[in-house]
């Protein structure tokens, strides 16, 4: 879904995310080998690639979780190390990172996403309302007082998205939001994302396959071995009704040789 909003000038002047020549190592192994990536305001960009291609490392470098050895990262036109306006960014990590050793309710988890909008962590009525709205967006209001441990994988993912939405961010960064999510939750997630995009949100998604989010995506950036090998329109599905995962991008295929397909399982 493309955006024909009237902020064309804004788009040209200030990309929301800009990576230039970004390199990163995990241990001594290079994971990103000079990546360029730009996400304009209102754009929905999917970061695709096989396991180990560096796509997760790329988003984690954007949020400052992975140290970068070279290159520049700008968020909203500000170098990342000087960027302080974190309430403009909503981050949805891979589901595995979020679990504590003490029970916590859905509301407690989602509330922590609102902290960036509060002063000294003091919650006002407006903050409580924002948390409630975020839960409504992902259709989890009836589970608000349940412990997160009692949720299914898909419901847990919806909670993590509500947590990111609680700050009412302009930019959503999501790492594999559809991984391990049941069908009912996938539909809720796709609908939630569509509503955010319609409201003007900018989205960067790490995806294993385009899947049910395909109609939302403006542009796809494909990584292979830490390099960008495709940056353009989302790869056309070959056989629209082919099952996801049916087509594979062969990891050893020459750079940009084949059109990329929906099922980027490798």
């Amino acid at each position, binding site marked *: 879904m493309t955006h024909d909003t009237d902020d064309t000038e804004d788009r040209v002047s200030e990309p929301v995310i800009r990576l230039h020549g970004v390199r990163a190592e995990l241990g001594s192994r290079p994971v990103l080998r000079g990546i360029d990536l730009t996400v304009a305001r209102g754009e929905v960009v999917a970061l695709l690639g096989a396991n180990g291609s560096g796509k997760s490392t790329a988003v984690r470098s954007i949020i400052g979780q992975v140290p970068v050895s070279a290159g520049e990262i700008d968020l909203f036109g500000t170098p990342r190390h000087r960027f302080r306006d974190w309430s403009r960014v909503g981050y949805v990590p891979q589901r595995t990172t979020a679990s504590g050793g*003490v*029970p916590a309710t859905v509301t407690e988890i989602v509330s922590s996403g609102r902290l960036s909008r509060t002063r000294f962590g003091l919650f006002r009525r407006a903050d409580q309302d924002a948390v409630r709205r975020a839960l409504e967006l992902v259709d989890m209001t009836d589970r608000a007082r349940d412990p997160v441990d009692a949720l299914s994988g898909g419901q847990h993912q919806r909670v993590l998205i509500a947590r990111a939405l609680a700050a009412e961010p302009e930019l959503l960064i999501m790492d594999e939001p559809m991984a391990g999510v049941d069908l009912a939750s996938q539909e809720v997630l796709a609908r939630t994302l569509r509503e955010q995009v319609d409201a003007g949100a900018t989205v960067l998604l790490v995806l294993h396959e385009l899947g*049910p989010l395909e109609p939302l995506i403006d542009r796809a950036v494909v990584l292979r071995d830490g390099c960008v090998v495709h940056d353009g329109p989302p790869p056309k599905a070959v056989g629209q009704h082919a099952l996801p995962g049916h087509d594979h991008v062969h990891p050893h295929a020459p750079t940009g040789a084949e059109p990329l397909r929906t099922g980027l399982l490798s």
Partner: protein
Amino acid sequence: MELLDYAFMQRALLAAVLVGVTAPAIGIYLVQRRQPLMGDGIGHVAMTGVGLGFLLNTSPVWMATAVSALGAVLMELIRWYGRTRGDIALAMLFYGGMAGGVMLVNLTPGGSNANLSSYLFGSLSTVSPSDVTAISILAAFVIVVTLGLRRQLFAVSQDEEFARVTGLPVRALNLLVAVTAAVTVTVAMRVVGLILVSALMVVPVAAAQQLTRSFAATFVIAVALGVTVTIGGTVTSYYQDVPPGATIVLLTIAAFIALTALAAPLARRRARAASAAQPAREPAECAIPATRSAGDEVGA
């Protein structure tokens, strides 16, 4: 209550209540971070502080506070930088701290390990008025941090990566948790002793979460339980002439066992109530496994 007529018992009970509040209050964040034994490590390091206090003839409580805070910061730094050898470095710190304490006490003129034992196992009846002052000031600090910053500490202890993206000063907050835990260890040192201090940080929290479903309720019940067992242990030790520290810890563990036994029927009743209240809530969920592996691919 005749025991309240004695000044030493008033001091002992006040100290016990302060420990009952502070130990679970900071312990809950350590449990949430899955580092429940951090208090134990700090307790070992604090021994060097106690020994240093004897050697320099200053207050062991304040010296232990300074040294264990330093040790806690060091542990936190090791956690950041020492990815691979972190556990080895922590072991060095623990045992070095304990050995240092024993060595320093024996270097003190006229000192022997007997002086240490009141810090190792607690010595409630010898809590002096100046100890009470120190314990009260330190406990106030712990309460202000654990309650005043509860949302921030919750977020950082729950999901560090996400907390960073909300702009929280994650490193500063982690250091604050470490230092607050160190302060709590020295608050509890005179009551339950350095060896047993970790029990009061961890076991009331573990016991509370047998019953609870939210962080807030876990916090409240853990602190209530902490106060109950510290008062109960202190009073018991007055009438029965048993060591208060050990009594308190054994009472805590008994409470854990009792609450665990109580939790099973409670959970069954909750499950029944939930299924009765919402019979048609997302029926499809029943057919879908509660957890999936990350690699599970479900196409539309």
